[in-house]
C-alpha cells in the first residue's frame, strides 16, 4: 500500500484576532491518494472552505492560525519556509475557486494568467508558457483556445471562465487539485460538463482531487469517498456508495433526505430544522445535537469521537463517524 499523497493530521484553524477569534476547523484528519476524488461536504459554516485553504496555507496570516500536520508527499506543509511554500503552491497543490469571475484578474488576458503560473516557477519562458496555456485551454474543452487565450475574463461566459480556472490550476501539473464549489455558480447544463471534465483530468493525470461542495448530487456524480464536516469537525467519512446507502451519522442521513427533493404527505419538503451553529456558539457535547431528531441525554454533554465502523466499505475503505448513537439500518 503506497503512502497517500496527502495526509492530514489534527489540522486546526483559528480565524480572527483577539476576542473575536473562533476555531473554524478542529482536529481534521484524512488521507487522499493519487487518482482519487474525495468530496468534502458541509453547509456554510462547516469549515470546509477554511480547511481547503489551510492545506496550502492560503488563509494563514494575522487573521488565521494553523496548527497540526499536513503531509504532502511526506513533507509537512505547515512547517515549510516561505520559499518552499511558494514552490509547492501551483506545482504541488493547486486550487480552483468558486467564483471564477472574481478569481481571475480582470486586467490580464486569460492566457497570460495561465502562463504566469508556469513562468514564476521557472518551468518555462513566456513564449513557451503561452503556447502551453493554449494547449491547456484545449484540454479543458474550450473551443477556439488560441482566440480565447487572448481574451479578458469578462469576455468569457461563466462556464468558460470556470474551465479557464481549471486550466490555470493544472498549469504546473500539480499532484493535488482542490476545487472549492466549482459548479455552484454555473448553469445546470454546464455543471455536468465541468464535473465530467474534472473526472477525466484526474484519471488522465493521475492526480488527487479534493472536491468541496454542499451539493450531494455533485458528490454522487464523481466522488470516490465522502467526508462530511459539521461545525469544523469531521462527522462521517465513507466510500460514496456506502455513504448514500447506509450512512451512520444522523446529519448525513438528514442531508441525504433533504437532497432528494420531494413533497412529503403534508405537502412540504424534507428539511433539517434550525441552522448550523456559528463557531463561537459551539458548546460541549455534539454540535449537531440541537438539530438532531434522535438526540439523547449524553449527546449534549459528551463530544463524540471518531470511531471506525467494524466492517469496512467496498474496496476496503474505512468508514468513520462521530456519533454516540449512530444509525443502525440502511436507508430505504
Amino acid at each position, binding site marked *: 500500500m503506497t503512502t497517500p499523497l496527502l495526509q492530514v493530521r489534527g489540522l486546526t484553524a483559528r480565524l480572527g484576532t483577539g476576542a473575536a477569534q473562533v476555531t473554524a476547523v478542529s482536529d481534521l484528519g484524512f488521507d487522499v491518494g493519487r487518482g482519487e476524488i474525495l468530496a468534502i461536504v458541509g453547509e456554510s459554516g462547516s469549515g470546509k472552505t477554511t480547511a481547503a485553504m489551510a492545506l496550502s496555507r492560503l488563509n494563514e496570516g494575522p487573521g488565521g492560525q494553523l496548527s497540526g500536520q499536513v503531509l504532502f508527499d511526506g513533507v509537512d506543509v505547515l512547517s515549510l519556509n516561505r520559499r518552499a511554500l511558494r514552490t509547492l503552491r501551483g506545482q504541488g497543490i493547486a486550487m480552483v475557486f468558486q467564483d471564477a469571475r472574481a478569481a481571475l484578474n480582470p486586467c490580464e488576458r486569460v492566457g497570460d494568467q495561465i502562463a504566469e503560473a508556469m513562468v514564476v516557477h521557472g518551468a518555462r519562458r513566456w513564449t513557451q508558457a503561452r503556447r502551453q496555456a493554449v494547449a491547456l485551454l484545449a484540454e479543458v474543452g474550450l473551443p477556439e483556445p488560441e482566440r480565447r487565450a487572448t481574451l479578458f475574463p469578462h469576455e468569457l461566459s461563466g462556464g468558460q471562465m470556470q474551465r479557464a480556472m481549471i486550466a490555470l490550476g493544472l498549469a504546473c501539473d500539480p499532484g493535488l487539485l482542490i476545487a472549492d464549489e466549482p459548479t455552484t455558480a454555473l448553469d*445546470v447544463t454546464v455543471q455536468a460538463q465541468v464535473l465530467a471534465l474534472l473526472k477525466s483530468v484526474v484519471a488522465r493525470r493521475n492526480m488527487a482531487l479534493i472536491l468541496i461542495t454542499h451539493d450531494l448530487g*455533485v458528490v454522487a456524480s464523481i466522488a470516490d469517498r465522502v467526508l462530511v464536516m459539521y461545525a469544523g469537525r469531521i462527522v462521517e467519512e465513507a466510500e460514496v456508495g456506502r455513504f448514500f446507502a447506509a450512512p451512520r451519522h444522523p446529519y448525513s442521513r438528514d*442531508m441525504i433526505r433533504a437532497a432528494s427533493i420531494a413533497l412529503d404527505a403534508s405537502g412540504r419538503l424534507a428539511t433539517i430544522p434550525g441552522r448550523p451553529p456559528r463557531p463561537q456558539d459551539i458548546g460541549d457535547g455534539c454540535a449537531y445535537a440541537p438539530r438532531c431528531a434522535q438526540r439523547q441525554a449524553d449527546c449534549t454533554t459528551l463530544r463524540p469521537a471518531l470511531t471506525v465502523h467494524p466492517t469496512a466499505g467496498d474496496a476496503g475503505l474505512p468508514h468513520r463517524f462521530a456519533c454516540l448513537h449512530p444509525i443502525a439500518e440502511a436507508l430505504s
Partner: protein
Amino acid sequence: MTGPLLSLHDATVRYAVPGGWRARSIAALAPTTLDVHQGELLAIVGESGSGKSTLGRAMLRLLPVAGGKVTFDGTDITGLGRAALSALRPRMQMIFQDPYSSLNPNKTVGRALTEVLAHVGVPRAERRERAETLLAQVGLDAQACARLPRAFSGGQRQRIAIARALATDPDLIVADEPVSALDVSVQAQVVNLLLDLKAQRGLTMVFISHDLGLVTAIAQRVCVMYFGRIVEIGLADKIAARPAHPYTAMLNDSVPQPDVVAARATVAAASRAGVADLPSLLNPPTGCAFRSRCPQATGICAQQEPGLVPHAGGGLVACHHPLA
C-alpha cells in the same frame, strides 16, 4: 372568478444596448403569451439568459413592455400610468433573489414593515401590531422589529422580505429565485414557508427558479424558458416524467441526483455531449433558438421558429420535433 388572474399576450421586453452610433436593442423577452390562473403555483424555470427574471418583472410591470399586452384581473396594465399602477401594486408583490440587497440596511425591520402598512392605509395605531403578526407568520419573533437587517442571516432576511410582500395582502406573488442565494439547509425551510403561506392565504404564486427538480416537486404547472422564449408549458409531473421539448429533457438529465448510479450516468452522458453556449442576443439565430444544441435539429429548425402549440401529452411545446 373566471379568467386568469394575470395574462400576457405577445408581451415583449427589449433592452437598449449601449455603444455604437445606432441605437440597438436586444429582445430579452420574445413575444410571450401566458396565463396565470387564480390560486395556482406556476413555476418558471430556465438557466441564465433564459429571460425568466425578465418575464417575472414584466408580469408586474416593473419593466416597460415594448409590445403586446399585460392584463391583471381584467385590467390592462401594459401602458398604465404611474398613479394607476401604484394603486394596483399592493395586489401584486415580488420577492427578490438576494436577501442582502433587497432590504434597506439602514431601516429597522419594524420600520420597513410599518412603512408598507402605512402606504396601504393601515391606521397608525394598528401598524405595529400588524407588523408583529406578519413576522410571527414567517417564523420570526416580535423583537426583530427593533433590529437592523444586518443582524439576521440570509434565510431570516428572506423571511422578512416575505413578510414585507405579504404586508399589502396581495393576490399574486412573484418570487424570483427566492432561495437560490440561501444555504442549502435553509432553502427547503423557506420554500416550505412559501407553500404554507400560499395555502393559508389562497395566494397565486409564480415561482421563478433555475432548479427544475425543485419546481417540479412543488408546482402545479411548469413553464420552461430558453433564450427569452417559452419552450414548454405543462403539468409538473408530466414535465418531470415525459418532457416534450429537447431542452427540458436536457435540463432533466443534467440535474445531479443524490443517487450514485443516476449521477454517474449523468456525468458520463455529459462527457459525451459537446460544449455549447447560448447563442448571442445581438445576433439571434434564425428559426429555433435551441437548434445549435439540439441533438435532433433538422432543416426546418433553421428556417422557421416553432410556435407554442398543444402536444399529445397535454401541455404546450415549441418544437418541430417534440419528444414522444
